[in-house]
């Protein structure tokens, strides 16, 4: 057990290191922007922000202090999840926006995950079980489609055909199940691709393994072999895909939420970019990176628990 504890510790340490560097990069870039949140003179010239808030911002960001102190202040605030007020919505702090809009993104993400897991893993299994059949070719076609079709293009086309032309579905919003269909479809492209590919190759590897032949020699029925042995073993490597999957869901949400007017974090992030709302941009970057890195960490740990060889070797 000591091995696992050491493994966890080293990975968590790595995660913190990464977050530190990412925060540094974010801070450095935002600092370099003229008119950015750390530009004291730009703040002065800002018409919309009242004077007392300006003074507060000066203190909070330490705009009159040397750079490294600003960074430390930024870090300290970040750890407390205090990113200040949004420039686009001066009456709300960034964290307030997060807290209020967070559920929409999570719902979209979970629905997408559910849908793409079913489709992706299903297609992968079907392709592996019946290689070179029409099912396999259909699966390949689907994965090529997912690969080359940008999610926002797909979203637009879906919107155009299903909503504008055929009037079957609403163009945007998030009020009910009918609103879910197109965004989930559009957001599922990348996850379906990844899951299908991984599952297919993982299944093939598992099916070719020696113990499968042993099981057949023992006389077990094909279906039982499939479910008990092959499927279980094939599923484990697919766990590793959780990290990249989370990354894909996060970045996909930017486009999908914008196009379908879903008021989640992605939507606010995109409008923050357009309006140069730097506190929002910085906060979202750091938070999203933390979430994605945590996803990598969790999936790595799950995989390590499932396959003890990973920790015993002491290698990553």
């Amino acid at each position, binding site marked *: 057990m000591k091995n696992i504890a*050491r493994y966890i510790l080293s990975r968590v340490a790595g995660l913190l290191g990464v977050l530190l560097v990412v925060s540094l990069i974010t801070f450095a870039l935002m600092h370099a922007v003229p008119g950015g949140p750390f530009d004291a003179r730009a703040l002065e010239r800002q018409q919309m922000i009242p004077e007392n808030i300006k003074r507060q911002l000066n203190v909070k960001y330490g705009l009159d202090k040397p750079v490294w102190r600003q960074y430390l202040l930024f870090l300290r605030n970040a750890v407390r999840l205090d990113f200040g007020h949004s420039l686009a919505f001066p009456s709300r702090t960034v964290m307030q926006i997060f807290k209020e809009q967070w559920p929409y993104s999570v719902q979209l993400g979970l629905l997408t995950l559910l849908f793409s897991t079913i489709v992706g893993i299903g297609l992968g299994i079907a392709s592996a079980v019946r290689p070179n059949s029409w099912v396999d070719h259909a699966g390949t076609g689907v994965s090529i489609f997912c690969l080359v079709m940008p999610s926002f293009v797909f979203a637009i086309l879906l919107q155009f055909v299903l909503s504008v032309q055929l009037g079957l579905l609403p163009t945007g919003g998030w009020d009910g199940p009918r609103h879910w269909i197109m965004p989930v479809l559009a957001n599922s492209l990348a996850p379906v691709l990844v899951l299908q590919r991984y599952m297919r190759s993982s299944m093939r590897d598992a099916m070719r393994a020696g113990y499968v032949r042993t099981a057949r020699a023992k006389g077990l029925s094909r279906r039982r072999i499939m479910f008990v042995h092959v499927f279980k073993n094939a599923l484990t490597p697919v766990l590793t895909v959780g990290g990249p999957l989370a990354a894909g869901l996060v970045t996909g949400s930017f486009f999908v939420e914008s196009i379908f007017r879903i008021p989640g974090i992605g939507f606010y992030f995109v409008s923050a970019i357009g309006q140069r709302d730097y506190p929002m941009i910085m906060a979202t970057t750091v938070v999203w990176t933390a979430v994605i890195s945590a996803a990598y960490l969790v999936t790595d740990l799950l995989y390590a628990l499932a396959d003890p060889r990973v920790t015993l070797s002491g290698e990553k």
Partner: protein
Amino acid sequence: MRLLGRAGRDAGGDALNMAETLLQTVELTKSFPARRASFGGKKLKNVAVDRVSLFVREGETLGLVGESGCGKSTLALTLMRLYEPTGGRILFAGRDITGLGEGALKTVRRQMQMIFQDPFASLDPRLTVGQAVCEPLDIHGIGTRAERRAAVGQLLGRVGLDASDVPERYPGEFSGGQQQRIGIARALALRPRLLICDEPVSALDVSVQAQILNLLRDLQDEFGLAYLFISHNIAVTAFMSHRIGVMYLGQLVEVGPGREVVGAPRHPYTQALIAAVPEPDPSRREAGVVAEGDVPESAGRPSGCPFRTRCPLAEARCAEEEPSLRRVGEGHEVACHFA
């Protein structure tokens, strides 16, 4: 004894004994960190080459024989500084090259070349034969284009590949024996004084082996080359070598003139190796020393004498005290308590 090739009818014996030492190692050691390090546990070491001291004189062949895993190939690579030694020294023509920097090493490398066990793997499949043989000349900027091309043709001719289209073909189009000839031609391009032959015929068919070995001997006579000839086959080694060294688990356990090491081996391991050579004539078969068991992993070396776990003569002393090389005859040393 029929095994004795060069070791036996050694015509230039005296001249060789007077020849200068070309290559010498002093307690050369190469160890690797063992792979299965537990997280923060004890760092195990795999000592592949263990304080080996040997020498090769100008124009002579030192054969190095031993089973797989005894460190012969690692020794060869370490001598060429393709691995960095972890201890000891290497001297070439009297000069210490152990820690030499890349620049100075480049000039030394012209005199010391190598041929490899897998002839095909030692040739870049994407280069033509001509380009491969010319590579050393290119690296050192020797001669003009035309001169190089002529030299390549000459070299290939000398090793028996003199058809005019040979330089344009790719290594994959040749047989193993021919590929090894190409490797030899390439090694000779810089006119080295020493050639390290790492199991040069082990991957070849038996009939082809003889051809290559004869070629190597002819080249030695013609150019006065010194060889470090590494093999796991003692018969082949005896054929090629003036002097023979026997390695076991990284250590040199016996070294001496070929005729003595083969004809009257003093170390139990050497005796076992000789006895293991199949004798086709049933009337001449003798029972010999048999070593029991398998070679232990070098990371888990036995204490004391490394051979004691398989040695029929082993006693308690062998586990406590590691035998060092002792002189038992003219130029003949053995590392055994009972020799």
